[in-house]
């Protein structure tokens, strides 16, 4: 085991996959000589050459659509969006072609689109978004949102191995902030299994990505008052671990669904609806949702702090749940 940051774990996974499978290649803007805007692929071009680490023009559709074409010919492309926000430029391709190709053509599209997402550092409206729910609504796409270095490495390997288009949301605010023990060898973390990031029986917090850490800080705070909340990290949204969520609801009877994405139509709504449908009689309190408000991500630190769910917001929500 080695201690790695979240971003080192992503680099490590990608490097190991490229070493073991010559079909894997990376394409994106500034991923070659520059090593990517966040330096995930620093040194990759020296090791793998310019045709496996391809600097692309500013053409998200050509990057992701090209990845699909290469995948149909048997390669395993990894496409990097410089920021997850820019995936809107390739939305049409992903939704129209990649997501529906196997359904009607029976030819798998094994592509991974890496999406540096999330806010917390004044990226403003165009460098901070969490667009996972728009894609969760598109049948045929898988959605991965790791919260820890261990999961980032194992989920990226699993994503590259997966025969479907996978959107890999890597949270920028975790890149260098979060460290953890990571096995040196290759391993995969299977999709569809939630992880208990923090155990507890008084409430279950269902969340993913950077909010796993926010939730954990809040739960630790409440533990001082004798209220033990479980932090359930979904890790993947499509597929999502419904069984484990329902088990948590049945055991704790109180649930907080927490995400950094905006509230209306966020993936939390799907989780809350499922709990209402399938575990209503186990609830001792209404399902609570905490999310960003329905607005673009603001720039000024004071505004962004008010926009993103903070530890104290989670603490307040948990107190409400505890008191209910």
């Amino acid at each position: 085991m080695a201690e790695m940051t979240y971003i080192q774990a992503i680099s490590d996974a990608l490097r190991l996959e490229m070493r073991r499978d010559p079909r894997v290649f990376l394409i994106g803007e500034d991923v070659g000589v520059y090593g990517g805007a966040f330096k995930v692929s620093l040194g990759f071009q020296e090791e793998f050459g310019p045709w496996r680490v391809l600097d692309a023009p500013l053409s998200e559709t050509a990057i992701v659509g090209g990845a699909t074409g290469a995948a149909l010919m048997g390669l395993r492309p990894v496409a990097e969006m410089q920021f997850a926000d820019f995936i809107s430029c390739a939305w049409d391709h992903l939704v129209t072609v990649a997501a529906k190709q196997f359904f009607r053509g029976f030819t798998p599209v094994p592509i991974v689109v890496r999406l540096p997402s999330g806010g917390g550092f004044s990226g403003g409206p165009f460098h901070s978004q969490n667009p996972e729910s728009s894609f969760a609504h598109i049948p045929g796409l898988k959605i991965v949102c790791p919260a820890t270095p261990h999961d980032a490495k194992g989920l990226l390997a699993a994503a590259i191995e997966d025969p479907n288009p996978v959107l890999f949301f890597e949270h920028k605010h975790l890149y260098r902030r979060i460290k953890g023990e990571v096995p040196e060898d290759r391993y995969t973390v299977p999709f569809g299994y939630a992880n208990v990031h923090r155990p507890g029986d008084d409430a279950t917090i269902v969340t993913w990505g950077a909010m796993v850490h926010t939730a954990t800080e809040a739960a630790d705070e409440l533990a001082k008052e004798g209220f033990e909340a479980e932090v359930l990290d979904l890790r993947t949204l499509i597929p999502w671990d419904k069984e484990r969520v329902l088990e948590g609801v049945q055991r704790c009877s109180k649930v907080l669904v927490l995400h950094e994405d905006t509230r209306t139509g966020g993936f939390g709504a799907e989780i809350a609806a499922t709990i209402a449908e399938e575990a209503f009689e186990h609830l001792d309190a209404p399902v609570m949702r905490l999310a960003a408000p329905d607005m673009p991500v603001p720039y000024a630190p004071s505004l962004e702090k008010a926009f993103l769910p903070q530890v104290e917001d989670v603490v307040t929500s948990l107190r409400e749940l505890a008191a209910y």
Partner: protein
Amino acid sequence: MAVREAEPVSSFQEVKEAGLDREDLLAIFRNMLITRAIEERGHILYKQGKIPGSFYTGRGNEGAAVGVAMAMGPNDVGTPLHRDMGVHVTRGVEPWRIFAQYMGREDGPTRGRDGNVHMAIPELGLHPMVSHLPAMLPVATGMALAFKIRGERRVAVGWFGEGSAARGDAHESMNFAGVRQLPVVFVCDNNQWAYSTPTYLSYAGEHIADRAAAYGFDGVVVDGTDVLAVYREARRAIEKARDGGGPTLIECLTLRMEGHAVHDDAFYVPKEMFEQWAAQDPIERFRSWLYDNAEMTDDEEGEITSAVKRILNDALERADASPLPDPSSLADSVFASPEDLDTPHHK
């Protein structure tokens, strides 16, 4: 701008030099007839209510489609569109499977998951189009990228129309292909009407092929009703790409001889335009050429036309015997499984 305008093909000698023998010529004729017959029969089936949804034809484009497909090698790939039935026929898709596709049956290439010409058989090197044109151009470009990365002597052909040339996908694909000198050939079916939109409301330049110069590769305009000229230009472009010479943009000029789909009577197309282009119908034109230059006999033509009829009759019967997909299979193919990977088309 002075893009090259291809000369018509005249003599049999010239055709031989382009790589076709007499057998090939008769095969081209047969494939053009099958293409038109499939669409004519399909139209009847549609009117009879046997084909759900909508129905599209490529009347007038048979020469452009068959000409390009004839020039492709066995390991080349392509993403043909709704006017390019001739590509499927030439690559060897059996007509009965096309009728099964039209009728939403289990034996259509999409097993009833998608309709009309949204189909392809990947083992034959073709991949199915979507409605959002030219969304398959980036895909074809990516296929060419795979060939380049692996150092394979294979070529991808991506089709688009003059209407969809206005969309960003076309620009991004050609720009990227030019930068990386990928083995891809872009074929523009310029049939002069994007639904009801005429060319002068789609683009301001003289030719779509003029744009090639801006992307750093060759462009050529060819009369799309001259199947042999299309073949010659496509072959030149494909072999150039195969030899590492990068992309080419081929613009095949035709007229869409029917409406956008069969519900559309194309009232907006001037009558004189239809009359003018009807006089250069690609099939009639090639038929005359075969008589004049390749000594096709009445008997030979008779044999071909009756074979086509037979193939079509058998195809309809066989397609009609194919069942509608079982609703229990509804969501079978939303996600692929690991065992779906590395199938023959993936080579």
